[in-house]
């Protein structure tokens, strides 16, 4: 903005505290607080809400359902589509409502990270639509989006061979650390967003920017896999809780009858 000076708090000089922990008190392999909720929306076939650090993300799934226009349909499998969108107020400077190039790319890689887990050949000519809305962004949105979208897919009853769980690993002041926060992401030396199919232990998303030696990169992947496995525990727990709740509700309804 022309002629407008921003006086902002200087970022602290180091991303580590004197006791060696990260600014928010975490160790190198520690995740930010994560909260998950499933079935948060009425209209979508499946939905989930994930808070990961200050990320606040809603994911919704429709399908498998009929595809319009029909000529887009695939003869042998379901078409998986994904839209990743950030709310205008989700970031420091207001974002234009129109999707930018980053949102287009992330829609693609999120879709490609989810599709390997879906039994797409069960639904030829159908579509499975995944929508991700970032209400607040705080570093690692694409990874938390994948965690949320996988929950929404499960909530929609889409048959899957595995869940998918996302987490980023980065490098701050020369050290590999999992799950960078916003400030770590901005001041750090690199970021590796990844996603895992946890029971198969295969990677479905892997990107990187910044500067990593091959050794750092491999170390990062191993730490990332471990972090993803922790998040997967939470995913599984929340789904079990959800199923038992649904089962209870059904049981109660039957009793009432």
């Amino acid at each position: 903005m022309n002629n407008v000076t921003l006086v902002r708090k200087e970022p602290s000089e180091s991303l580590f505290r004197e006791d060696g922990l990260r600014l928010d008190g975490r160790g190198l392999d520690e995740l930010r607080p994560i909260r998950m909720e499933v079935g948060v929306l009425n209209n979508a076939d499946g939905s989930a809400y994930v808070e990961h650090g200050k990320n606040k993300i809603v994911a919704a799934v429709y399908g498998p359902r009929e595809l319009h226009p029909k000529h887009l349909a695939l003869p042998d499998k379901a078409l998986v589509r994904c839209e990743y969108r950030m709310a205008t107020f989700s970031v420091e400077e207001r974002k234009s409502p129109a999707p930018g190039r980053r949102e287009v790319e992330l829609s693609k890689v999120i879709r490609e990270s989810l599709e390997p887990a879906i039994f797409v050949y069960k639904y030829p000519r159908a579509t499975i639509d995944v929508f991700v809305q970032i209400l607040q962004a705080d570093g690692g949105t694409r990874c938390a989006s994948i965690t949320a979208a996988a929950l929404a897919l499960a909530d929609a009853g889409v048959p899957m061979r595995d869940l998918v769980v996302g987490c980023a690993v980065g490098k701050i002041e020369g050290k590999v650390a999992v799950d960078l926060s916003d400030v770590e992401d901005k001041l750090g030396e690199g970021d590796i967003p990844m996603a895992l199919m946890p029971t198969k232990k295969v990677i479905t998303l892997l990107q990187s920017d910044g500067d990593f030696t091959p050794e750092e990169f491999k170390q990062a992947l191993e730490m990332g896999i471990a972090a993803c496995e922790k998040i997967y525990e939470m995913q599984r727990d929340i789904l079990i809780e959800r199923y038992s709740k649904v089962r209870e509700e059904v049981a109660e309804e039957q009793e009432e009858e």
Partner: protein
Amino acid sequence: MVGLSEVTSAIEREHISSLLVHGKRIDDRGLFEFRNIEVEVSPIEKAEGSAQVVLGGTKVVAGVKVDVGPPFSDTPNKGVLTCNAELTPIASPFFESGPPDEQTVELARVVDRGIRESKAVDLEKLVLIPGEKVRVCFVDVYVLDYDGNLFDASEIAASVALMAAKVPEVEVNEDTGEITVLDKKQLLPISNIPVSATFAKIDGVLVLDPCLKEERVQDARITMTSTQEGNICAFQKGGIGTITLEDVDTVIEVVKEKAEPVRDLIRELTKEVRGEI
């Protein structure tokens, strides 16, 4: 939404209608009763102000971002206020991605009119350098779940987000025109609290705060936004049915009674942050 009413079976319509003649609604509410309203104040820390409103099964999030920019050339002594709505596909299988459609634009513009015409935000107080630099307020409403009556849910969310907003204080150097954004925060200058009330007209009967099932069979929709003085600051008839003078009288009467509790709720919710009653 074209074709939506067509797919709703005539049976559904008859069911709703036959209840209404007995003064009953499908969800057992009174004709002029709002559904449950739940509000979360400031859920989005990165927005200057924000609110999530759950109205029955409808859920919206409003966020306010405030920037510095030039005023409109025809209002050099006023800040800029812009309302925008997004009917995300998350909220309904009938919403599609893409540039805003008629329904989205109407929602945004009716919410905008309620705020603007009630002078909810005192735009004169948002001027930093007359004719050159003013505060620019963006109010963006995201609909997350659609169960009817987006208007009232959005209007409440927008009002709460504006009232809860904290914007950085600025210092203006009048010689150089330079603006320094300080670390200290201040509230937005709020002069009024508009409250909208939306009615569906179904087979001649008016009901307040229609749910989706009612909206699908409604002939006409009426949204009336009132100020805290009880005046009418915005009115919008929608839908392809007609309304009568009697309908307008009814709406005015109901609003007299039903708007104030909503306004009280908004005041109560933002009392703490604003430090005032």
